[in-house]
């Protein structure tokens, strides 16, 4: 499970970085979303992976899973959700104000083929 989770985080991060470097605003927004997914999974994994144990110390259970990263992830999800909504609105506004969806607001020759 550890290797699979590490792989997922790695792939999400790589996809996020690649998309964030694209010249159009839509892939950039998608890239930021992927990055926030990756970091949420990463934060979650920092509490160590455990299956079938309660998030509280109890005599009845064999062990416990750290509840703090779950609280951190919750905060991070809320923040990244708000930020994503904001950046989408901003991208739409930029599309309206600048007349195209290039992040620099310019239509380059090379971009037509990208």
């Amino acid at each position: 499970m550890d290797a699979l989770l590490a792989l997922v985080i790695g792939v999400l991060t790589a996809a996020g970085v690649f998309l964030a470097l694209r010249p159009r605003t839509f892939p950039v927004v998608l890239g930021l979303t992927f990055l926030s997914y990756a970091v949420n999974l990463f934060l979650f994994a920092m509490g160590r992976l455990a299956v079938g144990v309660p998030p509280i110390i109890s005599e009845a259970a064999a062990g416990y899973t750290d509840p703090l990263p779950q609280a951190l992830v919750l905060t991070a999800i809320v923040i990244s959700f708000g930020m994503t909504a904001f950046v989408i609105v901003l991208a739409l506004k930029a599309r309206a104000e600048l007349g195209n969806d290039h992040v620099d607001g310019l239509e380059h020759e090379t971009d037509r083929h990208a």
Partner: protein
Amino acid sequence: MSFADHLTILPVLLPLAAGIGLLALRGAGIGVQRAASLLATLALVPLAIALFAATADGTHFVYRLGNWEAPFGIVLVADRLAAWMLLVTAAVAAFALLYAVNGTDHEGRHFHVLFQLQLFGLNGAFLTGDLFNLFVFFEILLLASYGLLLHGGGRLRVKAGLHFVVINLIGSTLFLFAVGTLYGATGTLNMADLAVRLAASPAGNTALVQSAALLLFVVFALKAALVPLYLWLPAAYGQTSAPVAALFAIMTKVGVYSILRVYSLFTGLGDGPLAGLLDAWLLPLALVTLALGVLGAAASSGLRQQTAYFVVVSVGTLLVALALGTPGALAAGLYYLPHSTFATAALFLLADSIARARGTLGDRFEPGPALPRAAWLGGLFFAVAVAVSGLPPLSGFLAKFMLLQAAVSTPHTSWVFAVVLIGGLIGVIVLARSGSLLFYRSQATEGAGPPPTLAALVPVAGLLALTMVLTIAAGPASEAAGDIASQLHAPRLYIDAVLGARP
């Protein structure tokens, strides 16, 4: 608990309450909103002064939220450095708002709400003693700053805003990766507890915590606009409205503050895997930042963009002081911090008045119409330029003098002297050229805009007066800065205050 016990959290609660209250007042007309916003911002000044006076004897005020004990709950910590930053923030915010109520606040919606939330984020970031809480306050101040940056709209502003938002979102992601790694390695997020555990972290974790600490440094360097992560700043600060840019003069200092706070704790205990981690990086980066900032100012095509580059220069100078690391250099940096914030904020506000007076030409460096009230504008420009470039008799000169004096006894004397002095000289030349172009090389007599109102010039004069106060009170001010530096060099006091805090 008495009032004094709650003093620590008031600078955080007041802007939050004011922001929410202003949201409820949005139908009440701009006059009421202005009065409420000004009142809330001005009330921060006595609060900051009270906190500054209370911490002056070296006490750490630890405020445990929800009365949870230190490593488990979130704490707010007010020490000399936090109070110093709060004081500077309150002063700059008051004058920026005083300028904004002349009409800038009416160009878009919810200016005052966002302004208060920005102050909420700033004050929280200065007071918090918890690393994840620092992230949350960063997000609050950033989200408010996105709204403020775009306030008023316009093509270039939206473009600069998009870049600013995207780069800061990536910065936030990196912050979370760093915080997550530190938590995974140490199991704590309280900064004092982190300092203890990092110093005692096992050898097998060295690479892990070092990479996390360096990742954190990248995030703070992005906020502080350190080379090579400063490229977003000139466009964002140069395009936004003047009072927002003036308030943003303190935002880069949040990055500097975070570097100072976090690394004085993480590396201050002397042993452990993080000792001396930044030593090899900080000084060269700071010197290059200073040099590139000056060159950017020289190449700027408009006064506001030039001012934005002077913000980069001030960050470079501050980080040179941090990198030298001796108590003397740190004291010089902490004395330079309010000066540079006031001076660049004043220049942003003045640049807006000049741009308005030049009519359609704006702040671009082209020969334009003769300015109305040129004597007033020119006189203020001269004084502000003296402050920004660090010439005598104002406090910038004293700060640089203290910095160079502190650099004499370090092994990097020649580099620091060369870059700071040559950078200062180029800064003087650049500002002299801008001034003579704006005020003397006027060709047409027509096309000038409306003359600046007195209400627009008062905030500039007020910020200038603050640098004069810093000059006249240079003795006590530099002594206070020295006290902060000595407190930062004894992180054990901070750790004991936080972890030893019991009801």
